[in-house]
């Protein structure tokens, strides 16, 4: 039961994270132009950082758990 959920979480969050990074580099030039201008474009890095920290944070947690590296109890 746990194992299935763990793999689901790993794959789910992993795919979401991969999609975010794909978007980042696919639109690299446009993003760099807009954010480099400053002003309200600051919202882009903030929103992106939040999204990545949520999905990628959950993914890495599941990843270490999955390969069996856990804190000593």
């Amino acid at each position, binding site marked *: 039961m746990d194992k299935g959920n763990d793999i689901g979480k790993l794959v789910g969050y992993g795919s979401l994270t991969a999609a975010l990074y794909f978007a980042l580099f696919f639109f690299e030039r446009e993003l760099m132009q807009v954010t480099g201008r400053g002003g309200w474009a600051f919202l882009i890095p903030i929103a992106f*950082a939040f999204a990545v920290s949520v999905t990628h*944070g959950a993914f890495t947690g599941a990843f270490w758990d999955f390969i069996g*590296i856990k804190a000593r109890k």
Partner: protein
Amino acid sequence: MLEPVSASFIQLDPFNVAYLFVVGFIGGLVSGFIGSGGAFVLTPAMMGLGAPGIVAVASNICHKFPKALVGSIKRAKYGQVDVKLGIVLGVSAEAGMLYGAHIQESIRRAFGNDGSNLYVSVVFVVVLALVGGYVLRDAWRIYRSGDRSESETLTKLARAVQALNVPGTMVYFPSIKTKISVLVTVPIGFAAGILAATIAVGGFIGVPAMIYVLGVPSLMASATELVIAFIMGVGGTIKYGWGGYVDIRLAMIILAGSLFGIQLGAIGTTYVKPYMVKVVMGTIMIVVLISRAIAIPVYLSDLDVISRLSADTARLLEDASFAVMVVALLLGAFIILRALASGVRASRAELAAAAATAIPRVPARAPSQLSPLARFDRILVATDGSEFSAGALEVATGLAKRSGGELTTVTVALIDLETEGIATAAFAHSEAQARKALEDARSQAHRSGVETTTELRSGTNPYREIVRCADDLRSDVIVMGRRGRRGLARMMVGDATRQVIGTADSNVLVVPRLAAIWRSRILLATDGSRHSESAAVVAARLAKMFAVPVSVVTVFGPKHDEARRADGRAAAQRLTDALVRDGIDADCTVVEGEPATEIVAFATGRGADLIVAGSHGRTGVGRLIVGSVCEKIIGQAVCPVLVVKL
């Protein structure tokens, strides 16, 4: 024609991306292992690739604040965050940060990127020399004295600060348990802010200042630092982002690596002796310091402060600086990973040895009935020692007393992988709290005339450990509290409670803080499904056990048509008739309106002090979803709610 990208942003090739990812990973590893500030390797690493100092600092701050937010929310759940202190320091740090960023920009305008680099490097060298030296001295002291327990005594300075009384400026802080003048906290926050704006490691001042100057316990200091880091991080990112200095690619690549590293580093601390953490911290700081110091003459020469270096000499110095940095990173990573590997091996060997000698657990006596559905032979009550568990404990002892079932009390010592670098201390603290909670529960049960066995589990997920414990003990019912809340939040059930209901095989009894064992009436909520029939069996058993009547309630909303209503009415009546045939005083009521609200209102109106409902337990992912009606009932009810699993 596309407009050109800002000249501040460097070109990224696959090598650079891989390098930043690895540096992020190692920075995270170091951060997770030694506490705040893996940034002191991240900022120079970005500068090493040619990013101007201000872009490196801006991108570093942008990658850091979401991590701080996630971490501080997590640790606030364990009561480690002094939000008030965090906000007071955070706001003054924000001011310091804006001032620091202003200095940075003025320098960049006046002296260009080289001036900015020189300034950042010099501050780095000075801060790392001071802090790194102090940390290494401290590590040496701990190593020599052999004192591994870091007892927390107030420093003389903290005592003096706490004694200081300036009328009109005193604010009470829960973590210090006394009033402190804001005339002390504001400069501390301001200094941390300036430092953070300059080298992105404000925690180097914030945490030690909170511990040594204000007298905040170290565990709370590092947790509160996350609030400050978040406030400053958002402010800093807006400030730098507004100026167009945040390189989102650099920030995100580093974030990707560091999230892997930070968790691994925190796990690592649970396998090493505390002084080792300080040895690694001090060593890395000093080597990074050397790396930055080597590069300073190059910036000085570019600014014509010293005589011009030849191109070869400048390149040699820059290469040497870069190489030393790589050595610092690899050295740190090597020490941590080696400690982790040998620790994990030893721990696995220990566990294997323990498993080989462990005696399998067998239920102590034969079950009172074969079907586990309405059985109450083994009762598991989960407590966290807080007031929210008090009701659960009381109801569990009442149930055990009446059913004659065995009572076990479980609590979970949390291992939090995001308590950067203080995982060992955090876990010891968590374990001590857990033991105390169990001891309190044992004596409370004893006073009620029930003996309870206790189980101390540890893990990163409280709900998972509770469900595992219930599986191991083959518990018939899990009794647990519901986070007591007010207003809108009251409608929501605590995360752990929801997850336990979603994943447990046994029934779950959720008890509000002030609830007691039922003595008046049981309300059986039915929707005509098979789940409701299971719930009816359990309600019947409890009604007999406690000699109380049962009210069968079914609720229809506007979307139900006449046929559905007729079916529902008939089903409710069937259940009621069955209960009456079983010798139970039962009645049947049909109500119109929003199901959860009506059920709770009916319970209050009729004086029912237990609500029994079937869960719509599913398999797979859906299994985690508790029926929304059931969840709302739990959220609103003032009496215990028993969720029956099919």
